[in-house]
């Protein structure tokens, strides 16, 4: 390694099996001027000892003292251009290449470190006997993490119902806007299971999903579901119910629902949707813009009717089924659970559970891989 003002003297490899050598003697003094080819020190390994010749010339700085060991291919000293350079850089360089102290023992397993980073937990706050494990971080986050969140300053509205929106994407923003139009709700925060989303968005804090209990329970918040994925909506609905949290229906003021419509919870019904007499909507469905649901239809939980879907009457849409944009369904048809009705299809016959249908009239083109 070369520099303007110095050249390092590297410990040579004496034998194929050696990784370390001991300097038994220095033949030069620190700060001495050394000529090329001059013997500078004697190195010893388990099998041999050898004198080392200077490969350069200059004012020599010793990094490794006599009787100390040095790793092969690491510098044992340096040749400086002149005394000025030796004075200026010598001590600093010697310190830089001095044997590094052994790193402090790790206090946590790799899994624990990863989880702590995800949850934003400081490992220094966790005390256990021995090494911190993944389960220690989980336990800490569940107790102390939630405690910290309980103390967190969140802006609550004195009169309106305060809401935590689960999700922080575009769907969640639509919910926030929809809620603001009614003057009845106030969105306090977003919750997201993706740690990278934590921060501030649309003017509200985004908290990690693990803080649901800590945030919502003590403040009496209700929850709105702003997530596109049906299985995630189901999971979070179950969690909210277990915590005794109210999961609200978000209904745009410009949607029209017949007074006889039966509605579960956690649904999002968007602008322009029409739901007519005696139709039933389960839980956590998304009824998109301009969806027309005529009378006596049953939309089971976790379904998603995309914009412009038109349903005749007395139709059943099974749990978790997705009906694509502009698709239409004939009166009396029963569509099973977890189906996908492709964009623009016209469904005229019953569809069995788990099918993917497409076309006018719609035919089965495939099967969904999993129930979710």
């Amino acid at each position, binding site marked *: 390694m070369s520099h303007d003002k110095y050249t390092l003297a590297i410990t040579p490899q004496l*034998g*194929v*099996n050696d990784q370390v050598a001991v300097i038994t003697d220095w033949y030069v003094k620190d700060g001495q001027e050394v000529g090329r080819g001059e013997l500078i020190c004697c190195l010893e390994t*388990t099998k041999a000892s050898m004198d080392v010749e200077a490969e350069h010339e200059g004012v020599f700085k010793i990094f490794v003292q006599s009787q100390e060991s040095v790793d092969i291919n690491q510098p044992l000293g340096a040749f400086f251009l002149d005394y000025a350079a030796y004075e200026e850089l010598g001590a600093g360089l010697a310190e830089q290449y001095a044997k590094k102290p052994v790193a402090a*023992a*790790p*206090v946590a*397993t*790799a*899994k624990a470190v990863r989880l702590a980073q995800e949850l934003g937990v400081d490992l220094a706050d966790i005390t*256990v*006997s*021995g*090494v911190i*494990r*993944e389960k220690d971080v989980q336990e800490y986050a569940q107790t102390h993490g939630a405690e910290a969140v309980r103390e967190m300053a969140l802006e609550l509205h004195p009169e309106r119902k305060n809401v935590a929106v689960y999700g922080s994407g575009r769907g969640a923003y639509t919910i926030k806007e929809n809620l603001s139009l009614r003057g009845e709700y106030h969105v306090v925060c977003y919750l997201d299971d993706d740690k990278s989303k934590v921060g501030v968005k649309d003017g509200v804090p985004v908290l990690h999903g693990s803080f649901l209990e800590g945030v919502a329970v003590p403040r009496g918040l209700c929850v709105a579901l702003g997530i596109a994925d049906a299985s995630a909506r189901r999971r979070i609905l179950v969690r909210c119910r277990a915590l005794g949290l109210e999961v609200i229906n978000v209904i745009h003021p410009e949607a029209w629902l017949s007074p006889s419509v039966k509605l579960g919870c956690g649904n999002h019904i968007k602008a322009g949707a029409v739901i007519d007499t005696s139709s039933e909507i389960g839980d956590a469905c998304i009824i998109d813009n301009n969806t027309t649901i005529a009378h006596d239809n049953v939309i089971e939980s976790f379904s998603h009717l995309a914009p412009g879907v038109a349903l005749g009457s007395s139709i059943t849409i099974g749990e978790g089924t997705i009906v694509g944009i502009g698709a239409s369904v004939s009166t009396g048809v029963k569509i099973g659970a977890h189906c996908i009705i492709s964009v623009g299809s016209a469904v005229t016959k019953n569809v069995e559970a788990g099918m993917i249908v497409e076309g006018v009239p719609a035919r089965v083109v495939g099967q969904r891989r999993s129930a979710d």
Partner: protein
Amino acid sequence: MKCVESLNQALHHLFATDPRVLLLGEDLLDPYGGAFKVSKGLSSKYPGRVLTTPISEASIVGMGTGLALRGMRPVVEIMFGDFVLLAADQIVNSATKFPLMYNSKVRVPLVIRVPMGGGRGYGPTHSQTLESYFNSTPNLEIVAPSYLHDPGQMLERSVLSSDRVTLFVENKLLYSKELLDISHPHPIFHFRQLELDTAAMYPTIAATIRGVEKADLVVVAYGGMAEMALQAAERAFLEEEIAISCLIVSQVKPLPVQVLRPLCAAAGKVLIIEESVKYGGWGAELSAQLHEGRGRSASLLVRRLGLAEFILPSAKALEDKVLPLAQDVFLAAKELFYESR
């Protein structure tokens, strides 16, 4: 303290306190002080009690046997353990047999020190771990300190407290290694010395992961392999949260199986590692004894890791491919962990 210092101090202490102790072997005199410097300073301080011998292992052990029969406490050094085969007849047909052949009227308290093991690039005939050849020799004791044990104390015990022939195995990589003070808190491991059973004179040390109640598996090792076991256990825990308890044996024969069995049974999965050839080796014997002594209902999975049936190369890079290293122990342990019972 380094292992070599511990052994050297023990010899000095033995020479100072018991005039029956003698040392025989090749090139033991100062200033050389033996190939691995274990006898350094001894011949200067105790002239006449350190006998440097011709290159004749059978004679060395034979003389030692005679001295032991006549009431001395001789220690003999085989320069490289590989050469102990030249004295095999003296060990198998004389030293270990005399007490029973003479109706227990004589004793042979002889200690044969054998530096064993590879990793120093000494090639096919100076790097082996051959004590397992002697596993089937009746009335022979085989002991091996590790860096968790007190080698000096073990040597003193085998010289003074044993009435049998002892093959005292010293791993060559161990000599220059700093011994670990197991009474000192360690960031990863909790150390404890297991109770000795009636047949065991030399301790087994358990290194368990701190804060973990139940081990996922047990690794049993001795001598130079102790370090491989602990390195693998540390890595398995820090990377995978696999909790390995290491049982580091120092009494290689007879096996302290009563001491080992409860911990092996509790974990249900046991990896035995050895530097000697796996085929017909120490691990095979230990595995058999663990299985023979277990109840009908208990499930026990035992795997072994040892040297392949191959000669040891000289070049370090090639030697590393043949010897069981920490990496190999880690992979074998991980495989065993994921193996279903």
